[in-house]
């Protein structure tokens, strides 16, 4: 009995630690560090033995976590089951791509032909492709039928425009956008940034004309391109989906994976404005009357970010890239990169200082 209690309390301590580590700032930092380690040590990490061990440990942690009722409640919610599967799939596909890249990079160093070199992946439409498609079709249908029976879609009360469920969540693939809306003004997070994501993805072939990596897996030849893409995808999309699915609870507060979703849990989130910090905190003066003067420091900061950073990067890290890309392509790339980095910057500012807006011209609906 005593041992049982000791074991339980030890498990509670572990749960508490994990709950703390799942606070958004820790979670984001850990994700970024994990991604960085993965990219730096991709040849070691993707070895089947190492990757298998990591996968097994994750599975074990997941199964042990299922002893906790709060965890089970979130994970087995009919809406969330596919997201758990998606996370497994993201990890597996990352491994698959980087494993092949690691093998190719080693071959290149030894001067051997690439793995793709001898492959003849020509497939006849009839009968090969049609058979594969038929089998895929049958298997998908069967899986969907079983899924629909085992995990029925939740049926809720009729929609009422004056009642919103608590928490009210977007479909899982939009949870990254919903998370963005927490940190930015709606026009920015709902219109400008999603638009730029799409425009930026369309622009990639025009920005990046480097022929390396076409038709074969490699990481060594394209470290910047692949790392930047993975930061945007894994950290700023998948991790935000994890936030929205598993960590956002009632009143859109953050909850640890083993915490009870208590709608009455207090949360102190009193906003601070950048103009207050600057005029009252730094200069100890009253706010200026006119809003343009009031917001001048914030405007200078934002404009400076977009003007100074590309020049600084050009002189330091991106020198060779600038030579290769030329003025226009380099600046488009730098703008898109800086826009992407706005997201983690604003998240960090919100979590550290409860910063509401850097530029807050509510009079014109212009908030950044």
């Amino acid at each position, binding site marked *: 009995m005593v041992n049982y209690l000791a074991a339980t309390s030890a498990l509670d301590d572990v749960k508490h630690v994990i709950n703390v580590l799942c606070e958004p700032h820790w979670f984001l930092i850990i994700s970024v560090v994990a991604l960085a380690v993965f990219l730096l040590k991709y040849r070691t990490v993707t070895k089947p033995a190492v990757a298998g061990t990591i996968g097994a440990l994750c599975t074990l942690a997941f199964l042990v976590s299922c002893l906790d009722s709060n965890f089970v409640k979130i994970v087995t919610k009919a809406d969330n089951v596919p997201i758990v599967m998606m996370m497994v799939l993201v990890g597996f596909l990352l491994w698959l791509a980087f494993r092949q890249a690691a093998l190719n990079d080693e*071959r*290149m160093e*030894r*001067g*051997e*032909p*690439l793995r*793709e*070199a*001898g492959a*003849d992946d*020509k497939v006849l439409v009839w009968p090969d492709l049609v058979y594969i498609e038929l089998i895929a079709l049958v298997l998908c249908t069967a899986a969907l039928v079983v899924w629909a029976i085992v995990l029925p879609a939740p049926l809720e009360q009729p929609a009422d*425009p*004056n009642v*919103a*469920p*608590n*928490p*009210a969540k977007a479909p899982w693939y939009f949870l990254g956008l*919903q998370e963005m*809306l*927490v*940190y*930015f*003004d*709606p026009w920015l*997070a*709902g219109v400008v940034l999603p638009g730029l994501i799409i425009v930026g993805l369309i622009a990639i072939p025009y920005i990046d*004309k*480097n*022929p*390396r990596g*076409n*038709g*074969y897996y*490699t990481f060594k*030849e394209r470290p910047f391109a692949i790392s930047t893409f993975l930061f945007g995808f894994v950290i700023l999309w998948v991790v935000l989906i994890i936030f929205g699915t598993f960590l956002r609870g*009632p*009143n*859109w*507060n953050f909850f640890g994976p083993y915490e009870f979703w208590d*709608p*009455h849990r*207090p949360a102190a*989130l*009193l*906003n601070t404005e950048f103009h207050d910090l600057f005029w009252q905190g730094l200069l100890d003066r009253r706010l200026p009357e006119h809003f343009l003067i009031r917001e001048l420091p914030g405007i200078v900061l934002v404009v400076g970010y977009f003007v100074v950073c590309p020049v600084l990067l050009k002189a330091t890290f991106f020198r*060779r890239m600038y*030579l*290769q*890309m*030329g003025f226009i392509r380099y600046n488009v790339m730098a703008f898109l990169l800086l826009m992407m980095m706005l997201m983690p910057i604003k998240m960090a500012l919100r979590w550290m200082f*409860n910063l*509401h*807006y850097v530029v*807050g011209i*509510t*009079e014109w*609906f212009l*908030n950044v």
Partner: protein
Amino acid sequence: MATKEVVTRVWIEEGCIVCDACEAACPEVFQVTEDSCIIRPAAMAAEFNKPLTGSIRDAAEECPVDVIKFETMMAEVSDEAPTAADPPAEPASAKVPAAVPAKPKPAAAAKKADKPAAKSAAAALTDDETDPAIAALLRAAATRGGNAGILRSGDIDSDEWRRTAAAQLPPDARQAKLVEAAKKASKDPDAGRRTVAGGAALAVGWVAFGTGLGVSIGPAFGRFMMPNVLEEPDPRIRIGPKKRYLEMAVGEVNEDYKPQGIWMIRLDDRIAALNIICTHLGCIPNWLPNDKKYKCPCHGSGYTFDGINFEGPTPRPLERFKILEEGGIVVVDKSKKYQHELGQWDQKDSFLPV
């Protein structure tokens, strides 16, 4: 003996983007350095370039900015040994340095170890009984992706390169500058002005056309977008006697008319009607009596009991409805709203005085 067109001289014009494509196609001639691309010293000789005609042409074609230029001449090539005299006829062998005999290449020693692998790769690829087009593609992929034939800038002994460049600066760089200067000198000074004038006229024409179109069709289109009949419930809602709201404590929120979209609040000197729609993105917040705040379940916006935004992403306070008294009964008119950021909360009809 047959006569063929062969490359005698090759040079690079200004505008290189340092993309490595030429070095991948023809490492014997091109060398991509940290910030430029140069012709190797050995390739200054016509005799060196002639057998490489095919891969130089490939490099010029693959160059994304088309700055690789070359001169050709007709030369006699022996029929007896076409592969020896004219390696470009077989792209795979041309791209593998091992196939070029006795070539004065700086990194030849370093590449020696790679030769057997490269040879066997090329052999394996050419022996394959696949479609010749696919085989060619595969060969290209293997060469481009890191076959032994590629000499990377990191492989080059930097000192050796510097010495060569200092002793005899590649003529291509000098020539490119001369060509550029000549081009600048011969430019017609009026050419730029003419194109600007033409462009301006074109722009004026299009703007005039667009304006005319907008003025003539715009209003009709705008009317078309409006519904002919608009059925809306009466925006005036009667919410009971004023006495009921006077009895509320200061700071209390009455949720009886939330289904109609109204929160009634009691301040120390007035009664007001709050719009329940979150000003962030239109969700419906919940009133949390213990925390004395409205909290939105969608993005976490929070408002104090009188509607002032203080936490979460929302940019502005909740709106208030027009409120008036008719014969002791309080009537809320949802068609008229008052916004705090516009200084409207002290306007007449935005509240009922106590």
